[in-house]
C-alpha cells in the first residue's frame, strides 16, 4: 500500500489563488521531503492530507483512506506539527502531551505512559514538569514532536520543523526526524523551503512550485543533478566553455565568467584538464559546488504526467 497517492489534486481558494494545480503523485513509505519556496503550496498540501481542507478537484488517498471524505478516521493515524507556535504556555509538557494523547483517543493510563515515553524520546524527560512558557524554541519544537508521536501515528507530517532553531537545534531536530522515519518505522513527510536541510534526512524529494509538481525523485537523483563543477580560467572563458560543450559536457556560463558543469554520472575533470591544456588557458579554479534549489527548478522542469517513487 502506498503511503499516499494523489490524482490531479487541485486546490483553488475563493480569491482565485491556485495553491495546488493538478498534482499527481504516488509515494511509498520512507522520509519524504516536500520542498518549494514559501507560498508554493506545501502547507495547503499538508492540510489536504490531514483532511482539514477540501480540494477543489482530484483525489487524495493517505494510508489507504480517502482524505477528502474520511478526515476524522484518517487523522487518528496521523501526527502533525504545524509550522507556527501552537503550545499553551501555562501548561507543563507532561500535562499537554498526556492531554493530546487522550484527545488522540488513547485511554488515560496509556496516555500518561506514552506521554512520558515520548518526552524521553525527544530528550525532555527531565524538564517535563516545567511550564512550556519557559521553554526555548528548540524545546518547544521537541514538545510539538512528542505530541505528534504520542499516539503512535503511521504517518508524521511536519511543516517547516526547523523554523527558528539555532544550528545545534536544527541538527537535533533533523536527527529526531531521521530516527522517527528509520528507527521507529513511521512514514514522514517534511515540508521545508530549505533543500540543504531536508536532503540530509530524506529518502525521496518532491519539489513543488506555484502548486505544480516540479520534480519527484529519490534523493540520490537529486544530489547527482544538483552537484556542479565550477571552473574559472585565465583567458577566453567563453571560447573555453564552447569547446567543453563541443566535447559533450553540459557546461553553461555562470556569473563573473565562471563556467558551471553538471557533474551527473560522468567525470568531467579529465576533459576540463585536457581542454585547458589544448587551448593554453590557465585553470584558476576547479571546485565542486551545490546548485541552488531555484537553479535546479529552472534547469530541470517537471516531465509530463505523474511521478512515483515506487522504484526508489
Amino acid at each position: 500500500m502506498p503511503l499516499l497517492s494523489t490524482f490531479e489534486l487541485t486546490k483553488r481558494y475563493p480569491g482565485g489563488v491556485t495553491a495546488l494545480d493538478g498534482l499527481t503523485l504516488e509515494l511509498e513509505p520512507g522520509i519524504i521531503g516536500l520542498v518549494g519556496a514559501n507560498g508554493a503550496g506545501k502547507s495547503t498540501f499538508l492540510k489536504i492530507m490531514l483532511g482539514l481542507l477540501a480540494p477543489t478537484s482530484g483525489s487524495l488517498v493517505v494510508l489507504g483512506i480517502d482524505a477528502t471524505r474520511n478526515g476524522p478516521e484518517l487523522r487518528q493515524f496521523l501526527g502533525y506539527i504545524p509550522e507556527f507556535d501552537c503550545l499553551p504556555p501555562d501548561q507543563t509538557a507532561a500535562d499537554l502531551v498526556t492531554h493530546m494523547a487522550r484527545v488522540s483517543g488513547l485511554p488515560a493510563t496509556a496516555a500518561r505512559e506514552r506521554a512520558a515515553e515520548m518526552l524521553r524520546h525527544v530528550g525532555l524527560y527531565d524538564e517535563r514538569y516545567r511550564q512550556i512558557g519557559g521553554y526555548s524554541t528548540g524545546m518547544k519544537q521537541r514538545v510539538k514532536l512528542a505530541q505528534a508521536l504520542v499516539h503512535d501515528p503511521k504517518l508524521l507530517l511536519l511543516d517547516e520543523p526547523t523554523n527558528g532553531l539555532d544550528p545545534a537545534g536544527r541538527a537535533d531536530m533533523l536527527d529526531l526526524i531521521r530516527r522517527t522515519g528509520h528507527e521507529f518505522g513511521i512514514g514522514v513527510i517534511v515540508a521545508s523551503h530549505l533543500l540543504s536541510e531536508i536532503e540530509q534526512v530524506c529518502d525521496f524529494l518532491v519539489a513543488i512550485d506555484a502548486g505544480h509538481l516540479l520534480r519527484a525523485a529519490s534523493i540520490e537523483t537529486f544530489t547527482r543533478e544538483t552537484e556542479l563543477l565550477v571552473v574559472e580560467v585565465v583567458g577566453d572563458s567563453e571560447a573555453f566553455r564552447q569547446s567543453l560543450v563541443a566535447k559533450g559536457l553540459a557546461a553553461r556560463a555562470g556569473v563573473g565568467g565562471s563556467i558551471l558543469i553538471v557533474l551527473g554520472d560522468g567525470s568531467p575533470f579529465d576533459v576540463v584538464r585536457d581542454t585547458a591544456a589544448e587551448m593554453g588557458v590557465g585553470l584558476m579554479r576547479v571546485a565542486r559546488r551545490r546548485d541552488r534549489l531555484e537553479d535546479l527548478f529552472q534547469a530541470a522542469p517537471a516531465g509530463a504526467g505523474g511521478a512515483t517513487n515506487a522504484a526508489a
Partner: protein
Amino acid sequence: MPQPEPAAGAIYDIGYQHYDGKRLGRAGAVRALYFHGLRTVFGIGRGGRAKIPPIALIAIMVIPAVIQAALAGLGNGQIQVFTHEGYFRTTVWIFGLFCAFQTPELVTGDQQYRVLALYFSRAVLRSDYVLARVGALATALFIVALLPHFVMLMGDYFAAEHVGEAIRKSLPMIPRILGAAFAIAVLLATVSITISAIIRRRPFATAAILALFLLASAFVAPLVMSRPDKMRYLVLASPMMVGDGLTTWVFDTTTVRPPVDTTEWVPLPPLAPGADSAAIAARRAEMRRRFRRRRPSVLETANLPGVVYLATTVGLILLGAGVLTLRYRSIET
C-alpha cells in the same frame, strides 16, 4: 551532522515502542476535551492560584444556603429567609462573576496560542470542540447551581422531626430545582462561551461577560420601571433577568400573578409653590401609603408570561450555537 553525546544517546537508545492498545476514536477525543474543560473551569491542573476564584465563588454561593440550613435547624423549619425559588435572584452576581472569570480560560487560550491546530489535527470536528467546551461549562454551572439547593434540602431534612415526611414534602420541588438549574446552566454557558470565542482575549472577554451579565440588568431595570407598558420587553436584553424570569416560572407555574397596578409608581406632580398645609398633609399621607407597600420587582413590573422567558432562553442558546459554529468554521489552523 554531530553525533549526540554518549549520555543523550543512551537515553535515546531505549527504543521506540509501537502502541497497539485500545483506541477510543472520535468519541474518546470529545470525552477527553469535555473532562479537560471541566477541570479547567474549576482550576484543576492549572496551578494553585487558578483554583482560588472558583473555590471562593462557590463558597460565597453556598453561604446563604448554609445560613438557611442553620435557621431551619434553630426554628424547626419555620424560618424561611432564603428560598429555592429566590436563590438564583440572590446569587445572580456570583453566577456573573463565575462565568466572567472561568469562561475565557476555556476558549481564548486555545485560539490565542493556536492550540486548536493541534486539536483539529486529531479526529475532533469543530462542532465536537464547541460541544465539549459548552458542555463542560454547562456541567460546571449546573453543579454550582445545585449545590446550595442540596445544602438547604439537607438542612430541612435534618431539622424535620420526621425525615420521611420532609423528603416527601420536598419531592415536588426537586424536578423544579433540576429543571431551573439545567436551563440556567446551558443558557449562561452558551452565552458566555460565545462572547469569549468572539472576543478572543481573556481580559476583554471577562469585561464583556461582566457587562452583559451584571450591568445590563442595572441598565434595563430603571427603563422598565419608568415605562412598563412600552419597555417591558427590555428585560429580555439581560440574560440574567431571562434566567430569573425562567426560574420564577419553573417554580411557580400554577400561580397567575395579578398585574401590578403600575400607575401607583408614577411620580407625584410637584406641589405648587404656595400650597396650603392641607395639601402638604395629603401629600405626606400618600407618600407614607406608597412607602408601606412593597415596590414590585422589575420582573413583576414587566409581567411577561413565563413562556416568553423559556422561548428567549431557547432562542439565545440557538443563537449562540449558530454564532459559535460560524466562528469556529472560519478559524484557519
